[in-house]
């Protein structure tokens, strides 16, 4: 039990490598920050899907709520990024907590479909309130102030990536601690056998509500990051496609491992960027093949596959 929480050399290497884009590929910084944001979103889904077994097809709901919250306060005159970010995360978390009362009532397909339905309802709600959200055209006039009043968001994306990476790292630390805590163990218990939980006196619904709210909050942070680093928010931030994509990235990397969420995001978005660069029209053919190959040959996701190789070497 102790083993799990120690930092391995791989992890340290990984986070150092995350700094490389600053020096080696500065022209890829915008992509890198988009990946960091998506990875944060994927981590939020991993917390509920990978660790608590809540499959969701509607998590963009919280991503979008966070994004709109940060965007709207900026449009209304408060463009300070860090406080905006925190408020957006809090907002998404509160909504997440409220929604969790519905979520914990259902399981399996019904659960997936309720998350999907709530996601669509939120999307339609945003569409129905153009005075607040800008409707289909998206929110106009977001201006994010420099971070600490010092660092302007620049065209190259230095500030954007640094900001996104810092938030990702902090949330990762929090999530890592969470999954290695007693609460993380309780979540694994729920995933392994919900039916047994009440019989050991566990308030598993309470656990589920808590993790759902935390996850929603992190998703909201990711959304707010997107709003702040790109100054754009539109309905797509709430869309079913975004909900589905994040699940795809997560499974691709491997669920139930935080690095799986990050790795899956990197592979998916880089593959997509490269394939689309080669052929903007048919890139998803390549993505489709990638997904199929991963399932056939790496049933535990790419990270699970790598972990097995490392284990064999030992």
């Amino acid at each position: 039990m102790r083993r799990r929480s120690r930092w391995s050399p791989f992890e340290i290497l990984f986070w150092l490598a995350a700094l490389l884009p600053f020096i080696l590929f500065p022209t890829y910084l915008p992509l890198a920050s988009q990946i960091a944001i998506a990875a944060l979103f994927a981590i939020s889904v991993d917390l509920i899907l990978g660790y608590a077994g809540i499959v969701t097809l509607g998590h963009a709901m919280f991503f979008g709520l966070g994004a709109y919250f940060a965007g709207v306060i900026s449009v209304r005159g408060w463009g300070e990024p860090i406080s905006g970010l925190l408020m957006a995360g809090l907002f998404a978390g509160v909504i997440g907590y409220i929604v969790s009362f519905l979520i914990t009532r259902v399981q399996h397909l019904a659960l997936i479909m309720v998350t999907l339905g709530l996601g669509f309802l939120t999307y339609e709600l945003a569409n129905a309130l153009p005075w607040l959200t800008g409707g289909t055209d998206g929110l106009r006039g977001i201006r994010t102030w420099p971070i600490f009043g010092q660092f302007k968001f620049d065209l190259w994306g230095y500030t954007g990536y640094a900001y996104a990476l810092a938030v990702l790292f902090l949330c990762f630390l929090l999530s890592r601690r969470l999954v290695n805590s007693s609460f993380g163990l309780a979540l694994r218990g729920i995933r392994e056998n919900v039916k047994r939980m009440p019989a050991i006196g566990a308030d598993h619904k309470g656990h589920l509500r808590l993790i759902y709210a935390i996850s929603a909050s992190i998703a909201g942070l990711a959304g707010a990051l997107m709003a702040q680093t790109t100054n754009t928010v539109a309905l797509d931030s709430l869309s079913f496609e975004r909900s589905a994509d994040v699940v795809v990235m997560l499974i691709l990397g491997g669920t139930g491992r935080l690095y799986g969420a990050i790795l899956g995001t990197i592979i998916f978005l880089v593959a997509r960027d490269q394939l689309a660069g080669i052929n903007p029209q048919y890139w998803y053919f390549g993505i489709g093949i990638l997904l199929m190959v991963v399932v056939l040959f790496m049933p535990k996701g790419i990270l699970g596959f790598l972990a097995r190789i490392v284990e064999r070497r030992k």
Partner: protein
Amino acid sequence: MAEPDIVLRAEALRKNFGKLEVTRDVALALPRGARHALIGPNGAGKTTLINLLTGQLKPDAGRIELEGGDITSLAPAHRVRRGLSRTFQINTLFPDLTPIEAVTLAVMERERTAGQFWKRLAAHGDAIEESFTILSQLGLADVATRTTRTLPYGQQRLLEIALALATRPRVLLLDEPAAGVPKDESAALFSVISALPSDISVLFIEHDMDIVFKFATRIIVLVGGGVLLEADPETVRSDPRVREVYLGHGHG
């Protein structure tokens, strides 16, 4: 007659599945420190009765009391916290957790520390200690860090009991704890059960009469959803009705 110290009491419990009356007007009183057996034909409603007592099922009528308090409409988890624990007829474990993890989880749920997401698991040293003690007590210390799904069946049955013990029960309901365990091992398992602290009351279901007669101090016979007889082993063994519907002619 002086009323013994009753820990768990059920009155006029009733449960129907559609037209089928699975539990009819069952009354039950389990004294402190009891080692009672619950026997009866297949489908008599034994598992159902345990499900009612522990809250997995809601009774259609009747009342359940634990240590004098009404728990009839309490959720299962709350009953467990009040000291009413059970094991399952078919293993209901956490296949990918290790025994030490599973038992620690149960301990922390009891201590209400399982929700502390900011604290490292390793920092809950007391809970880990305690669960290791429980596992040792059941002879599971050696396999404490193996994945549950790879354990032999008999040890999984023991883990069922370990999980129940981790909740610090005052009443323990065991549903065929030795099912699927080879004969020589099942006797060992029951020795462990009967050696539990004397303030824990135990009610177990079992079809192996050698074991029942050896370990039970009192036997409740359930037939067709109702209590046919509650008596000491000798009386039950020689009761013609029990022979007729349950024992057959093999056990004389």
